[in-house]
């Protein structure tokens, strides 16, 4: 039987885990421990449904309802002086709970504080764009869609940004293999030459560390040097490194003529 590979998460896992190891937790501090954050959370609570708040490593984390996002971000900008949206992205929890966690990293230059707004959405659930509030969300949301396939409504130009437009699947999902899926192997061949050339050219090798023993066209040969494109054989081949006509001044060097000194003269 072929070994079963979990398709929910194709990413690398630790090969050794201590049975009794329990990972420690970075402490989550109470919001009251920081005056500025306490005030912010209080005013947020009076307007919105806040699920959970805590401070971790000096930054406030607030969990909200997905439907409130535009209002919350507007409120943060206009009322609480968080004037920068410095980062926005998703975390893939599909294998664990079928959800994406979306986070918005905010910065207030007047208060010198950073906070994170977060919420969970289901895999196919659409979220609202915050592009109207912070223009910086424009590309960040496109990247989030590109990498995770999170659908965003209200964005003016919802297109992939880093991957080609016709790329299959979303690379940062945990289900996506590190070296790309089968579509990725054929992508360039289909695009440049056409599908009919698949048999002639063959799939693209996407594992850069792969060694093909019998390949004499690329750098992947092992054991010994072989002339370019030569037939593969088990026997070692003597290769002269100099081209046929030789180089000016330098005498044609072949392995037979070389004298190997036993010791330094």
């Amino acid at each position, binding site marked *: 039987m072929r070994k079963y590979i979990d398709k929910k998460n194709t990413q690398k896992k630790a090969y050794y885990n201590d049975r009794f190891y329990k990972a420690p937790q970075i402490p989550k501090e109470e919001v009251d421990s920081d005056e500025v954050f306490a005030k912010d959370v209080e005013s947020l609570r009076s307007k919105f449904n806040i699920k959970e708040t805590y401070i971790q490593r000096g930054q406030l984390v607030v969990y909200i309802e997905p439907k409130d996002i535009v209002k919350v971000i507007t409120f943060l900008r206009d009322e609480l002086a968080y004037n920068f949206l*410095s980062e926005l992205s998703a975390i893939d929890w599909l294998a664990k709970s079928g959800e994406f966690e979306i986070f918005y990293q905010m910065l207030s230059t007047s208060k010198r504080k950073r906070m994170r707004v977060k919420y969970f959405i289901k895999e196919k659930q659409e979220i609202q764009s915050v592009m109207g509030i912070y223009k910086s969300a424009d590309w960040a949301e496109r990247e989030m869609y590109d990498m995770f396939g999170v659908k965003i409504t209200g964005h003016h130009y919802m297109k992939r940004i880093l991957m080609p437009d016709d790329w299959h699947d979303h690379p*940062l999902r945990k289900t996506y293999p590190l070296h790309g899926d089968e579509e990725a192997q054929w992508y360039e061949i289909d695009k440049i030459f056409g599908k009919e050339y698949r048999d002639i050219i063959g799939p693209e090798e996407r594992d850069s560390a792969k060694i093909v023993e019998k390949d004499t066209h690329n750098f992947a040969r092992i054991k010994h040097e072989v002339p370019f494109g030569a037939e593969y054989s088990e026997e070692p081949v003597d290769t002269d490194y100099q081209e046929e006509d030789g180089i000016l001044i330098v005498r044609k060097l072949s392995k037979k003529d070389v004298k190997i000194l036993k010791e330094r003269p």
Partner: protein
Amino acid sequence: MQKVNRLKPFFENLVFEREDNNMIINFGPQHPSSHGQLRLILELDGELVTRAIPDVGYLHRGMEKMAENMIYNEFLPTTDRMDYIASTSNNYGFALAVEKLIGLEVPRRAQIIRMMLLELSRLTSHLFWIATHALDVGAMTVFLYAFREREYAMDLFEEYCGARLTHSAVRIGGVPLDLPQKWLIHLMKFINDMPEAIETYEGLLDQNRIWKMRLEEVGVITPEMAQSWGCSGPMLRGSGIAWDIRKEEPYELYDEVEFDVPVSDRCDSYGRYKIHMQEMRESLKILKQLIPMYKETSPELMAHAPKYISAPKEQIMTQNYSLMQHFVLVTQGMRPPVGEVYVATESPKGELGFYINSQGDPYPYRLKLRAPSFWHTSILQELLPGQYLADVVTIIGNANIVFGEIDR
């Protein structure tokens, strides 16, 4: 074998108004002044840009995906390839984020060496910026002079860590090497020679008619725009907002050294040029203060945290337990606690942020790289319309974007 018609450039699903006389041109991705693989799709009315669509992704290597499949120490050399003009600032940003995640204190000497490397990389980056920017605008002389000084700075890097471009000279928990003999003397010589060089550049450019005509009132970013588009670094300070992370949220020993944050209210390219020049002087000021600070420190270079950081080499070679720890850390990697951090540092280009979500595994569960250039490229779509085609080059050059960072 190739079908020629399949290689025709095409505008994917882009809708342009074609009734008028507007012309659509493809700027890049292979263009000498696009500073990397930037493709701009420009709609022109005569020479005036009416619409601009930046297209990025030609250098996408999937660093975030790679990070999720690597142990923390393994990923550090990969960060070199983000902003390859100032690679130490990326190494440092990542190392600081992991240190914050596990709560490490770095020895004082390591902190000082790191700051020296950071400021030197800021200098190399700014020198590279002024050189290429001037070249784009047509001032060849500055390019040659600035590259000469950049070479001296790179020599210092080479003397310290052996590499000139991709240093990896910062490690999680400290730095691997102490400064070599005479390095401080060479640094001092560099510091003494630099101000004159900066004056030379300014002498060539400040009052230069062509330079002024091409930079003044070009690429105006209002403070509102800068905030909305998430600008940082010189792009933000050029709009009159005094925000330098080194000053406002000091890391390492930036609260112990004295330096100013140059700000300009001009909002245009010329203002940002002046800021870069001034920032180089401030970096030199910081470097100068660091030399006496270095001499007063004790020689520890790596943090003492056996759970996360290998012991010094001598200890590994002589003590069995340290050897075992080292073996585990190299083969399995460190396991930081469960939690998440976002750490921002002031890289030469702006706010370089690392968001790490750790689930207690040797691999980060999610790592997001917040590269300043990505956000500075997105602003082009608002900045370019209304400018002339010739100014596009000025604006791209002035934004100081590096494609290793944008596409990651």
